[in-house]
């Protein structure tokens, strides 16, 4: 089939047999929810659809339903995601394997409906697994895989699958939609050890004193660590059943003998791969490493990659004010413990939907190769901002 990223999300949730869907409309997520409402209305998906009155309520309703033993799904974007922030933390603290699509979109003001990653990045402390997708196929596949990863006993954490606004959400690509039977064989029904039910007078989410709180957080930390291995294992299983995979936590493209590598996430990685091919054809030893899972962060993968490189360019489609791009900061932290540390530079690009063209990527590769030889003056550079002396187009 040929479909948009949003429809891929909807088909993913349908194939995963989500049982309770609570969602609130926001551009550019709306077609996910509309499609799911259609599936429920026609009976194709046997689920309860709750048209809640805010995103905060969407997540709160999912939390309650998941605690009662139902597999839940929701979708949002930008301001909807940030409105949910309080309850995102609740979902992970309650150790509920909720799966959500976030259509990553810029934050206001200024108002923008176009892609950037600030909304998603701002949730990196919430205890959610975060997957940045490059293609619509990956969106569908990752939703199904995420349920399996999250529902495993050693994990029990929620996950967000991130689609770039409009570039993935509203652009049609060929997507193979697997047979329901095949998905059922891969992903069994959700059956938690403990759920809220009549007959067991348990309280879920009680008050805890300072002398016991840390132990709960420690367990969640261990679960996030376990998620790293679980993601890899589940993807191997997925490959075995469906015949495809998406690169684990860090997808490496032509990195084996690279001297400089661009690290980035989302749909821009697809453009970057084309640029890598073009530059390789001219003899440049470049590669692309795509952060697919930002949480849990692929520290080990980055470390083993970095030790062989001269330079790493990290392209962040977001910015952490007062610091640097979040992905750059984490990549740099991973690299700190390497014996041999490549030169590193952060490129902030593509905010508010600003196009990241092949030309811009070429210039970034050019820049990092120069810097790898002589060192960086500024560690962080904003790309393609009008008024700055450097031209990127």
């Amino acid at each position, binding site marked *: 089939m040929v479909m948009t990223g949003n429809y891929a999300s909807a088909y993913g949730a349908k194939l995963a047999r989500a*049982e*309770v869907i*609570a969602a609130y409309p926001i551009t550019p997520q709306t077609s996910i929810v509309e499609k799911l409402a259609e599936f429920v209305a026609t009976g194709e998906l*046997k*689920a*309860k659809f*709750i*048209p*809640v*009155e*805010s995103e*905060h*309520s*969407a997540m*709160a*309703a*999912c*939390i*309650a*339903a*998941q*605690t*009662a*033993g*139902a597999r*839940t799904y929701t979708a949002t974007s930008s301001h909807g995601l940030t409105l949910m922030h*309080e*309850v995102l933390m*609740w979902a992970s603290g309650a150790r509920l394997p909720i799966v959500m699509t976030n259509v990553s979109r810029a934050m206001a003001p200024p108002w923008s409906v176009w892609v950037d990653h600030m909304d998603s990045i701002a949730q990196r402390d919430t205890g959610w697994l975060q997957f940045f997708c490059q293609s619509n196929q990956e969106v569908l596949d990752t939703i199904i895989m995420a349920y399996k990863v999250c529902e495993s006993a050693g994990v029990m954490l929620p996950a967000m699958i991130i689609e770039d606004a409009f570039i993935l959400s509203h652009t049609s690509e060929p997507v193979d939609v697997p047979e329901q039977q095949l998905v059922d064989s891969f992903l069994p029904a959700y059956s938690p050890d403990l759920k*809220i*039910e*009549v007959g*067991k*007078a*348990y*309280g*879920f*989410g*009680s*008050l*805890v*004193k300072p002398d*016991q709180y840390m132990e709960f957080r420690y367990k969640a930390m261990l679960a996030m660590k376990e998620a790293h291995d679980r993601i890899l294992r589940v993807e191997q299983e997925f490959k075995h059943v469906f015949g495809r995979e998406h690169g684990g936590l860090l997808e490496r493209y032509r990195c084996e003998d690279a001297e400089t590598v661009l690290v980035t996430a989302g749909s821009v990685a697809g453009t970057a791969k084309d640029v890598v091919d073009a530059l390789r054809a001219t003899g440049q030893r470049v590669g692309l490493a795509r952060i697919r899972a930002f949480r849990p962060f692929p520290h080990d993968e980055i470390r083993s990659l970095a030790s062989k490189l001269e330079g790493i360019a990290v392209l962040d489609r977001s910015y952490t004010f007062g610091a640097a791009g979040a992905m750059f900061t984490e990549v740099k932290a991973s690299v700190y413990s390497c014996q041999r540390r490549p030169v590193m530079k952060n490129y902030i690009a593509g905010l508010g939907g600003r196009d990241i063209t092949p030309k811009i990527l070429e210039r970034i590769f050019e820049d990092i190769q120069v810097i790898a030889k002589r060192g960086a003056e500024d560690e962080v550079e904003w790309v393609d901002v009008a008024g700055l002396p450097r031209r990127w187009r």
Partner: protein
Amino acid sequence: MGKTTIPEDEFTYPGSTGCPGCGANLVMRYLLKGLGERTIVSIPACCWAVMPGYWPSNCLKVPLLYTAFEATGAAISGLRAALDVKGVNDVTVVGFAGDGGTVDIGLQALSGAAERRTDAIYVMYDNEAYMNTGIQRSGSTPWGAWTTTTPVGSSHGFKHETKKDIMAIMQAHRIPYAATVSPAFPEDFIKKVEKAKSIKGLRFIHALSPCPPGWRTNPSLSVEIARLAVDTRVFPLYEIEDGKVRITRKGKGLPLVEYLKVQGRFQHLTEQEISEMQKGVDDSWIMLLLKESSGT
């Protein structure tokens, strides 16, 4: 003799960490007597989030879901959806929230749940302020009351806004059943709970919940104050069923000052202010009688 006037089975354990004389303890006790064991209760941030005790203590004999503050309306929708999808249809879903978590921060989610006709009972236990955080005013604090954020003698000087009429708000949502209850009249309370249980859709119960530390009252008077509230008609007992008002207890019609004088939070009021309050109570009572007689 020796025969109780309300069901004997208890669904709460002793050892709740509510204050001595806590009206909310009585509200929960009567509610669960009316609903029985096949009940799941969702509780947001409020006194009752703390009263079951520190983990692993639970003073309820039914399952309890703790939620974020504003989320009760959404949580009951989620619980009901999960039960529905699993084919469980003989369980009562209850949202049990304070006045702050209902008329202020929780109003949006409650409105959503009502509009969606969520099959659940929403109980607002009304101690008329944010008591769990230390007696700050809420939209449900009555005109004239002292609270820590409407202290007396400041430029603001006690609460000058009238209490939000949550029953009117719920009536406007056209829900099938809403009722006011007072812990001083447990028979009326439980009868209403049993009736609510038998109806489908979003049912709303507004329970007055006297609070000794917040109202500055003697703990031994909590039931008497809940009685005076009804008898002075500051908190009349009535139902709204399918949009029609029915008063279930007319009350003695005592002067409001009988209710005010036993509460420290009203001690600063002048005679003028009290007579204004009395007029307000009288007007509301007349309105209620009119609603009842006109069949709306």
